[in-house]
């Protein structure tokens, strides 16, 4: 469709301030009219050096930092940190706490996917679903707020459990949310997913092959929509995920519509997990009472992967036996997903590139750390 036939190109700056980049991402586009000749993401506008901060704080002091990485999927990030420290220190987590962690993580996944959905449709020009999903998010976040105390950047998990127990109101609320969300998802599918204009905007845009996924390290819905079966919850189960029965939505199309459908289906699967988890929350302690105040993990390095709403987040922690980490490397899923943008976007139209970026589901603070 696009053949480079002119030498006249101009540079358009999709600047750090732009409604469609979902954060402070700058992309230097070399354009030939409406076609993109070259796209170069420029990162670092919200770089806060979380990895250096980790070296100057104790393990417990570092807990709030992880919520600020990806504020939409904060529980999964905190979970990775708690799991790796528990692995390194040999701390056991009570049954009740693992189930609570799963419920919170899956509720967080649904709210994150809802926001992605609203933001993608706004990028394409449909302003209304954004307001509808905030309604749904409000119900879920209100419930999570009553237990965790936060609405967005949750700092709820502790080493050996969670910081606050759940009560019967919460469990009843979660039981009600599941059928409510199912009717809402049905409405979204009827009004939005099957809309002819949306189909035409997303189908065939931004094809990502499985080889590309492997070469760039893409994970999450981006990889699953291209046919790569990689979900950390099933590949390397943590926090009791092996006990729940859920499917991994996949597609082989690899275009933006495939990523869209995969993520919408993931919301349904999260509802399944929550249903199973909430059916039988084991009684017992919500926190391991025998965790020492000062944690000094064994010397050596450790790795923990967790499936966040955006992909496979990994922490590589190097410990020297003191109470602060020697090195804490945060493997950001969105960084790997974004790195395939320059290759995919070459020859695309500008509006298609924005639809593609929306389907990648980027949160820039997580890339820049």
């Amino acid at each position, binding site marked *: 469709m696009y053949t480079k036939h002119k030498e006249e190109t101009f540079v358009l700056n999709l600047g750090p301030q732009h409604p469609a980049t979902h954060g402070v991402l700058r992309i230097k586009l070399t354009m030939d009219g409406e076609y993109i000749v070259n796209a170069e993401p420029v990162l*670092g506008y919200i770089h806060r050096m979380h990895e250096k901060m980790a*070296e100057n704080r104790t393990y417990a002091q570092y807990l709030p930092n992880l919520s600020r990485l990806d504020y939409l999927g904060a529980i999964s990030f905190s979970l990775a940190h708690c799991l790796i420290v528990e692995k390194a220190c040999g701390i056991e987590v009570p049954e009740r706490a693992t189930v609570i962690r799963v419920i919170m993580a899956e509720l967080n996944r649904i709210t994150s996917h809802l926001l992605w959905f609203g933001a993608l449709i706004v990028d394409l020009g449909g302003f209304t679903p954004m307001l509808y999903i905030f309604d749904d998010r409000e119900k879920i976040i209100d419930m999570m707020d009553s237990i965790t105390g936060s609405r967005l950047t949750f700092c709820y998990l502790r080493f050996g459990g969670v910081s606050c127990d759940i009560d019967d109101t919460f469990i009843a609320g979660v039981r009600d949310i599941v059928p409510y969300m199912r009717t809402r998802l049905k409405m979204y599918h009827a009004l939005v997913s099957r809309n002819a204009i949306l189909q035409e905007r997303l189908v065939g845009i931004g094809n990502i092959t499985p080889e590309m*996924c492997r070469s*760039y390290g893409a994970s999450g819905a981006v990889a699953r929509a291209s046919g790569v079966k990689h979900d950390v919850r099933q590949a390397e189960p943590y926090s009791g995920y092996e006990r729940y029965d859920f499917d991994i939505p996949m597609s082989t199309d690899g275009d933006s519509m495939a990523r869209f459908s995969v993520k919408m289906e993931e919301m349904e699967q999260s509802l399944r997990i929550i249903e199973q988890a909430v059916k039988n929350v084991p009684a017992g302690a919500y926190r391991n009472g025998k965790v020492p105040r000062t944690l000094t993990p064994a010397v050596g390095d450790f790795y923990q992967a967790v499936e966040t709403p955006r992909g496979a987040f990994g922490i590589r922690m190097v410990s020297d036996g003191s109470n*602060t980490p020697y090195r804490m490397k945060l493997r950001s899923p969105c960084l790997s997903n974004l790195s395939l943008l320059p290759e995919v976007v070459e020859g695309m139209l500008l509006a298609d590139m924005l639809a593609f970026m929306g389907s990648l589901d980027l949160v820039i603070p997580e890339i820049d750390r």
Partner: protein
Amino acid sequence: MNDIVSLLTPLSVHTPRFVTYTEKGWHLDALIVTERIIDATRVLADAGYTLETITGVDWPEQGNIELVYDLFHSDRRERAVLRVRIGRDGAEAKSISSLFSGAAWHEREAHDFFGVRFEGLADHTPLLLAEDADYHPLRKDYGAQANDVHQT
């Protein structure tokens, strides 16, 4: 995984070993000879592994910087870790971006934070730091050390 071990052994400093997954989080651990990292990564790339991340760790008292390559095989669900050690002054390593395109950004980040130059990487402009940054924050001899840790 044993086929990979036999292919990696001639490229490694010691024989690659298996670690306990539940304790550490990966399966295979190999310390590779610095010049042979591309061949070692090729062994894993041909077997179907994905590069997840490249981590730099600064060991000033050992006088070197360690680069840790985390690779994952989604079908076999196996994790492999390759390590190289390079000197702190004039830190030079070989780039694997010809095998994994995603390595380019990880190597740029390692250059930002540790000052490692990768042979074969065309673009060393800072990925996360400012364009004119000439400091390397994650080295242990940089800036503020543990002066805001509250001992409890």
